[in-house]
């Protein structure tokens, strides 16, 4: 007993200092992440003004040109051209619109379904909880690709249906987190107080429990946006997502696949775009998690 006590006392300041340092480091990275995301959002909003060329304008005579800094590159096509002679940079910029729209909308749908079910499961427990938890476990065990593919196959590939497919497959994580947190809060005295003040269940859930869950949902939400963007490109790559000629990073990746060995920039540019947007969102999510960590907030 004595020894373990000393051990804890010795460790505490160091680990706390470590956490504070880690927090500052994460916050700095979070600012970088925030800047990346700001750039993405501005690009998505203003790409008709910002993009150097029309992303749909084909020119067979100038197809498969390398980026401008490479031999044979043209200064007016900064990142080169694709197999139909379209400007790659412009297409990447327009692709931001697709990715952000899908990423954010799909996650909003996931939150709507997942958080709703999680609140019900956590608050009522019993049979409702058993049913919802079973559903969550089934969804988590089911291969995402198969489910999303079947949904898109039934609904038909379009922007809207991809959002629906990603939304209907991604919600279980939100249910898990919400359920556990709701269970934890349900027996807290302020929720008991709300019950004894005769508030309706809807009011207790939305006004007393949900606001206390927002930090966790926010953090999870950012990470899930990154995942949805990657999943969209996966579906588009497989031909089940956005249909050509609409510029989506996944579509561009698929088109670039055939030219991988000689014209590698066709696949590399959308790849880099996916990488940086996912990285930026994850960095921001990490920093948010640190900001809402109650242990650090107290110190």
């Amino acid at each position, binding site marked *: 007993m004595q020894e373990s006590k000393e051990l804890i006392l010795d460790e505490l300041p160091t680990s706390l200092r470590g956490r504070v340092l880690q927090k500052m480091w994460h916050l700095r990275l979070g600012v970088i992440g925030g800047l990346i995301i700001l750039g993405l959002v501005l690009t998505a909003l203003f790409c008709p003004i910002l993009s150097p060329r029309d992303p749909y304008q084909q020119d067979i005579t100038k197809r498969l040109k390398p980026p401008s800094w490479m031999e044979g590159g043209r200064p007016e096509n900064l990142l080169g051209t694709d197999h139909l002679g379209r400007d790659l940079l412009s297409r990447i910029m327009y692709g931001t619109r697709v990715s952000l729209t899908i990423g954010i909308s799909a996650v909003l749908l996931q939150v709507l379904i997942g958080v709703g079910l999680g609140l019900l499961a956590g608050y009522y427990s019993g049979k409702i909880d058993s049913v919802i938890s079973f559903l969550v476990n089934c969804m988590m065990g089911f291969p995402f690709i198969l489910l999303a593919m079947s949904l898109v196959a039934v609904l038909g590939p379009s922007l809207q249906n991809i959002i629906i497919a990603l939304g209907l497959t991604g919600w279980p994580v939100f249910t898990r987190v919400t359920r556990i947190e709701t269970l934890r809060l349900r027996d807290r005295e302020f929720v*008991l107080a709300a019950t*004894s003040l*005769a508030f309706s269940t809807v009011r207790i859930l939305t006004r007393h429990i949900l606001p206390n869950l927002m930090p966790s949902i926010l953090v999870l939400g950012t990470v899930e946006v990154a995942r949805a963007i990657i999943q969209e490109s996966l579906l588009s790559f497989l031909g089940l997502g956005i249909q050509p000629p609409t510029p989506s990073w996944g579509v561009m990746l698929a088109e670039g696949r055939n030219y991988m060995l000689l014209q590698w920039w066709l696949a590399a540019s959308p790849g880099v775009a996916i990488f940086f947007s996912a990285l930026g969102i994850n960095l921001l999510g990490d920093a948010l998690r640190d900001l809402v960590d109650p242990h650090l907030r107290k110190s």
Partner: protein
Amino acid sequence: MSQHGELLKVENLKKYFPIRKGLLGKAVDYVHAVDGVSFDIMPGETLGLVGESGCGKSTVGRCLVRLYKPTAGRIEFEGNDIATLSGPELTTLRTRVQMIFQDPYSSLNPRLRVRDIIGEAMRVHHLVDSGGWEERVLELLDAVGLQADHMARYPHEFSGGQRQRIGVARALAMRPRLIVADEPVSALDVSIQAQVINLLESLKEKFDLSYLVIAHDLSVVEHVSDRIAVMYLGRLVELASDRQLYLNPKHPYTEALMTAVPVAAPGGRQRRKERRLLKGDVPNPIHPPSGCRFHTRCAKVTEVCSAEEPLSIEVEPGHLVSCFRYS
């Protein structure tokens, strides 16, 4: 009102919590948290309910405000049985019976401002004319000793004692007749405890309240209560006026509780009685001991104690004891 004008009359209250196991969640056993408790509270009276932790005193309190639904028994409030109420009738009851919670750090929603913590119930239940609720919040803040500029603040900006005052104001917003105070000061610093206790006393007259004060600390209960009920393992063992109970405790368990209270007079008056420490822990309420539940720890145990259950006997007017020594 019932025959004798009681505000609250509890008869043979029982609350068992099922222990569920297995895939289907079948109840394999029960925790006998409250097992046949009877008492009453008169208008304007403060009843103290004391006992060790785990004896079921909080469960009694939560049954009274219907956070728990009793397993059996009657709870008569203003003449109506409230043990089985639901729907709008339960809502009406809740405007009449309110609760003050133990932990002021967990009993206030950290995401709401004081204005909303206190005022929400008034708006939801239309207890004041629309628009008048902020004024009423100000009145309540004043009544519990807080200032008007506290309205716009969040709970984490307050100390424990101030938070407990906010909790009291929240309960008062419903204009209750009865307030169940579940360990209202046990989470507070000793220096703050007296302030909150005095606040409860002063509010009693101002708002025409009755209290059930639940505590494990006899000195707290002694100060505020008109009568005191002593609880052990789901049962009441003794119920008497505070004077009777302190001068003349009858039940061996009460005696042990009394002598366990430290006397704050070093070198002064001698200790009233020799300290009689209880041996062992409270038995498991899943399988409580047979007969008198206290017989496993009682210093004056006899053979009959483990065989039969003692009945509650009025040894002198208003002094009830459940012990074979008095039958």
